[in-house]
């Protein structure tokens, strides 16, 4: 059986490689466009997937309301930018303030959702918390729909078209470029936070053993809240960026984006932060190639097929860990 698998794998890779090389040589610019488009898409997934994976890592909960936090970030930015636009403020000031408000609001929602919907269920069976998460997601969608509007709202990009970038804009637009750069900066900052700061170490320690963390004086509840706040902040940044890219938002954008980011997190290995970034890029780039070279109508089908394949063949994901413990 083993050699059949290997042979099939080699044939598949060979055909794909041959065909891919031919396509790249025949139209390298199109290939580059798709690749960069995929990285842009992957960056957005990564900003959302981080929240999923960090929360899963620390309390083993799939926070299905996370997509809504991202949507709330985009909504807040839209409202703030519109109001300030009416006052006629400078566009750079508007962009910065819109992002700051989006982060603050999303963090507040993320923090509150944890306190209301998950903390009381900390010691309940995991299914209860999951149902609570789905309920929270539906509630937030409908709340925004009722409080704002069910219509699509135009979102005027907060990122201007950079003049110096004009010659390359046909391959990758200023907005896409900004998305990639901002994502890289956020990833580096987050990496520093998790790896080197005391709160980052406490987050990792709490994820590995909550009782032991408490026995060393770590306030576990505070660490969990911090995790939700950090995840919400990156999701808010993702929400604002994607809104600039797509140009319109409504109360429902969090649903699909949340699910896609969830797939990316599972693909990379849920609970692993580098895994979420890697999974997002792999998902974004392969989606981009799939829609560019095959059928664009089947974009979402493709993403969910990846989820199914991963869950069957490698449920722990690309960078998933196997637990080992010494006695």
């Amino acid at each position, binding site marked *: 059986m083993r050699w059949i698998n290997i042979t099939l794998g080699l044939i598949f890779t060979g055909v794909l490689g041959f065909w891919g090389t031919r396509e790249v040589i025949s139209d390298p610019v199109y290939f580059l466009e798709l690749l960069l488009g995929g990285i842009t898409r992957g960056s957005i997934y990564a900003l959302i997937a981080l929240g999923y994976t960090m929360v899963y890592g620390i309390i083993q909960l799939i926070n299905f309301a996370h997509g809504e936090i991202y949507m709330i970030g985009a909504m807040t930015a839209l409202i703030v930018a519109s109001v300030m636009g009416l006052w006629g403020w400078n566009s750079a000031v508007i962009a910065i303030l819109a992002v700051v408000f989006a982060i603050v609001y999303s963090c507040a929602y993320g923090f509150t959702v944890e306190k209301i919907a998950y903390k009381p269920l900390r010691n309940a069976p995991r299914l209860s918390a999951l149902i609570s998460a789905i309920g929270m997601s539906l509630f937030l969608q409908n709340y925004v729909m009722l409080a704002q509007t069910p219509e699509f709202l135009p979102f005027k990009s907060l990122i201007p078209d950079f003049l110096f970038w004009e010659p390359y804009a046909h391959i990758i637009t200023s907005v896409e470029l900004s998305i990639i750069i901002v994502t890289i900066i956020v990833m580096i900052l987050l990496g520093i936070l998790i790896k080197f700061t005391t709160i980052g170490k406490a987050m990792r320690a709490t994820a590995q053993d909550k*009782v032991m963390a408490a*026995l060393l004086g770590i306030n576990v509840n505070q660490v969990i809240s911090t995790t939700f706040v950090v995840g919400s902040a990156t999701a808010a940044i993702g929400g604002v960026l994607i809104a600039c890219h797509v140009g319109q938002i409504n109360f429902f954008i969090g649903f699909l984006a949340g699910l896609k980011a969830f797939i990316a997190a599972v693909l990379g290995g849920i609970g692993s932060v580098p895994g979420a970034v890697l999974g997002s890029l792999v998902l974004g780039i392969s989606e981009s190639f799939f829609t560019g070279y095959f059928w664009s109508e089947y974009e979402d089908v493709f993403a969910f097929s990846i989820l199914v394949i991963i869950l069957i063949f490698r449920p722990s994901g690309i960078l998933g860990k196997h637990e080992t413990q010494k006695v």
Partner: protein
Amino acid sequence: MLKLKDIHTYYGNIHALKGISIEVSKGEVISLIGANGAGKSTTLMTTSGVVPAKRGSIEFEGRDITHLPPDKIVKMGICQVPEGRRIFPYLTVAENLDMGAFLRKDTAQIKSDLDYVYDLFPILASRCNQTGGTLSGGEQQMLAISRALMCRPKMLLLDEPSLGLAPIIIKQIFSIIKKINEEHNTTIFIVEQNANLALKAAHRGYVMENGVITMTDTGENLRTNEDIKKAYLGI
């Protein structure tokens, strides 16, 4: 220093501690011995606030800590090395030690304490960038004790420090426990199944059976007591 008065603790419907009272004075080494399932670990977990007592009171340095959460109790100076060491497997040795000093802000003092534990266990210094999960059982126990020392505890609770270790390592660990007690005047509370070793190291001992304290005396007297010899020392 530490006073447990008539403590009752439950796990669901199971009555694990049935009214135990223990008193520990400053600078003492106390051993709690007993068979599997007697409630020894529960006693420590109740003291640390992880499994709160249903009735009774716990006093530490004159303050009631019965209903405090674990992190507040650590802040008051009680640090526990729990059963099975519970090293953070994906943190490095150095990061594990950092977590021990989580509540402290005195950078210079932390640095010198770090040198102190690396001096106690030189093997940890040579493995400081390795993840905790890759250490051997004995090294993990050394790391667990060092991590607790990084808290600068007034009182150290040790749960089964000898569990699963080679005799030579056990000897080393117990001599270091003694050293910590003498050098820092740290009060030490040891829970052990290895009764002989634990009573030898202790000033005083308690014997526990099915959730109650059945006997208490000096370590030496308990070790020579005929009943204890029969039941726990296998002589």
